[in-house]
């Protein structure tokens, strides 16, 4: 019970902090002071107090977009284990539901973008669905590999049941898998080199251009949902990367929080040292990620 409460509190409160850490890291690399760590929380609080502007073109789908996306991401957050603690909801096959919940969110985000009738948002929506459709097979190759290695069909079993022996026995496979998943983590969360979450009006972007017309609380929901998605997929990555649990169950929560913060710094470093890719290169990198995870599966199937 205590685990479930900590899980919920972490999922509810921690996601914006990751954005703050990423921002601070990038500022440090650029030699600036940067916004405070808690800036994303202030932004969210301000957005939720603001009024809204709605285009007369839009329908209820425009309002439903952020709501459904956040609900789907939150449901996914209930199925992913944090660190070595089991998730509140776990059953055989929940990995499939996990993947499809993100698809549900994407379906509504892109529909909301098309609802505005803006050509820019249509463009962003088209890129979002196409690139994520290329990222989907990577995730499933990774899930199959994990199911094979751990003998479990649920995310909790796959990620908490990943003993150090698996790393020692199938290290090459795990490294390939991690590389593939890191690419997916960056592309699904619209980070550099795939997309730049800080520019709001350029035609080379994906996610931000889709939410141009959202304002006030709706934009707050989107921002929070994006942070939550980064948190959930980040937890997935950290769970694979760090199978070594602390000896004391109570110590595992701080360990998890710490490794999530390290991941945020890592993302910030990648964003600082890389430029955004040209649009035509993105599919190539995503296919490369798929091939990496496919190899990781082949290595353990032989």
């Amino acid at each position, binding site marked *: 019970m205590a685990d479930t409460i900590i899980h919920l509190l972490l999922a509810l409160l921690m996601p914006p902090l990751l954005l703050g850490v990423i921002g601070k890291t990038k500022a440090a690399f650029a030699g600036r002071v940067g916004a405070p760590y808690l800036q994303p929380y202030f932004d969210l609080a301000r957005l939720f107090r603001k009024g809204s502007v709605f285009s007369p073109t839009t329908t209820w789908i425009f309002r439903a977009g952020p709501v459904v996306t956040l609900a789907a991401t939150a449901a996914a957050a209930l199925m992913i284990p944090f660190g070595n603690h089991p998730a509140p909801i776990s059953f055989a096959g929940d990995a499939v539901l996990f993947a499809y919940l993100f698809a549900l969110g994407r379906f509504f985000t892109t529909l909301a973008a098309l609802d505005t009738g803006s050509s820019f948002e249509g463009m962003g929506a088209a890129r979002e669905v196409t690139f994520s459709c290329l990222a989907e097979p990577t995730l499933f190759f990774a899930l199959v590999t994990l*199911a094979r290695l751990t003998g479990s069909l649920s995310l909790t079993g796959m990620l908490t049941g990943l003993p150090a022996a698996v790393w020692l026995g199938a290290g090459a496979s795990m490294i390939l898998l991690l590389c593939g998943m890191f690419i997916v983590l960056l592309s699904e969360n619209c980070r550099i080199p795939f997309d730049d979450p800080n520019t709001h009006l350029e035609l080379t972007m994906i996610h931000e251009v889709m939410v141009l017309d959202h304002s006030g609380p709706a934009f707050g929901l989107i921002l929070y949902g994006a942070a939550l998605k980064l948190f959930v997929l980040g937890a997935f990555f950290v769970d694979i990367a760090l199978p070594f649990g602390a000896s004391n169950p109570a110590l595992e929560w701080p360990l998890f929080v710490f490794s999530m913060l390290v991941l945020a710094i890592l993302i910030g470093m990648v964003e600082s040292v890389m430029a955004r890719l040209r649009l035509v290169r993105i599919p190539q990198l995503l296919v490369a990620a798929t091939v990496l995870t496919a190899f990781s599966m082949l290595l353990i199937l032989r």
Partner: protein
Amino acid sequence: MTGFGPDEFPLAIALIGCATALLALSGIPGLFLRHRPGWGQNFAAAATVVAALAGLSSAVSLLLFPDPSSWLLDWNLPFGDCEVAVDALSALFLIPVFLVSACAAVYAIGYHPAREHRDTEPGMTFFTGILAAAMVLLLMARNGVLFIMAWEAMALSAWFLLTTDRGKPEVQRAGTVYLFATHIGTMALFVLFAVLRTETGTFGFPGIRALASTGPATAIFLLALFGFGAKAGLMPLHTWLPAAHANAPSHVSALLSGVMLKMGIYGIVRVAFLFQAPPAWWDILLVVMGAMTAVLGIAFATSQRDLKRMLACSSIENIGIITLGLGLGMAGIRRGNTTLALLGVAGAFLHVLNHSLFKPLLFLGSGALIHATGTREIDRMGGLAKRMPTTALLFLVGSAAICGLPPLNGFVGEFLIYLGIFSDARGAAAPWPALLAPVLALVGGIAAIGFVKLYGIAFLGNPRSPEAATGHEAGKAMLLPMALLAILCCVVGVVPQPIIRLVEPAASSLMPWPPAPGGAIATLPSIGWLSVASGGLLALAALIALLFRRRLAAAPSAVAPTWGCGYLAPSPRVQYTGTSFSELLVNLFEGAVRPDRTPPILSGLAAGASRFRFAPTETILDRLLFPAFSVAAGVFAFIHRLQHGQMHIYMLYIFVTLFLLMIWAH
């Protein structure tokens, strides 16, 4: 679920028989009541609904309380006994036939009213009834000859239906291609039943896994895959399908796509599971064909500009998923993996039922769109969600369901298949099925592109044409069947246990091991949890929506035009079109889709107005079959002289042939 006890089973079969007769006769009064438009149509709709209620309750009761009894009819023909029976497999496929034909009949009252279509309506109503009755008969037939008769009645009445608008050249072309495809398939079935007869000695159907897979087993399987696969739309036999489904009236497309394709699947199941120990390459062939059909089908669908052509191509994708599930099931049986076998087949069957819920829903919805805008081109619609709010909501349910998104029914079917794949990947010695999980995921991703495009461009944004700007909501007779199907999609998604109970008897009847007591799948913890998670998701969304509304109400809100990035003269033409939406994907699948692009020609410093043309092509039909046929036509020109339209010489041919045959026989 129904009031029949286990002792009264002949009653259930008799009810299905009566329902068949009622369906077959439903269009006849309309043929004689041409001076009173509407009477025949209303009668037919009422009769179809009554038949559907009787048929559905019988099929459901036969699934829940299986009964092996069969009837022998005396037909005095030299083809053996005329046997009809309903086993679990037939009963399962009966459900879509009855459900969709009732929805289509009611929808027709609003969509194709007799008052406005006095010349075509009676024929259409008549052949709709014949089509439905033929499909029921086909599912009940246990004699090859009776089966072929029902098969031909189905194929031909479908041809009459899809060529309702005979005046249009594209309808004529679609009808001709259909007729060729269906008869080439039927020819394979003639050979199939002939070979089966030499093997078993009768035209009667052997039971499930009654034959040894030696001798002509391979020939039988390949013939079935060709003959039935052509009807189901398996690639590369799908060439007739997109044009035929696009050009038929919408409720007919719903019947063809939602139900008739499944008859091909039924045939494949009947024949593929006839044999005791099929070789490994059978299931691998099924899986590979299924995966290829699914990926390419949805890639074709996404590149389409025509609303109904896109839905038709997406049916090919769904047939691919079903075939993939069947192949996995066969592989599971061969390898002795009970979980993979049961989940694969049950997932395929559940997808059969699911597809017969959301595909008719989408076709009926597209009929409402066409009614409102007078065009099938997605890029000429737009903004219809405001003018047709109910249709828009129902269509949204259908689109999300067909993409396999939770918490709708499409997800449950795919979930079962995934569960089978994962459980095999976990421990099997040669887990090649594991490769299919990413394939299914890719298919789901591409489906999302296609249906976001379809829905977003047609219903959202600003109207792209004057017709779309003045579109009107569909009438009650059209909305009612759509609402029924949409509600079923939602209910099955959140509470899948009852429908899994219906699917399970059919799936376990194909298994070589005894069925698990109490239903193995419906009681799986995963299914219960899936239900909980779906309900939880809905509750979560409702909670967030409530908080969001309160926040919106607490602060002022303004109305302003969509932010155009500083562009001062926006018009609806500036909006992203469906063609541009799917362009990235079409580029990735350039090799298979091969659209016909005519780029604008710009010349000079101040180039004038210019046009870009994009037309998806039927790759196999246009680049392979038509050229091959024209070569064949040249080569066989001399045979053409035998055909000249003079009846007495034709009769002479018949006489001479018979005479020669008699001499040869003696």
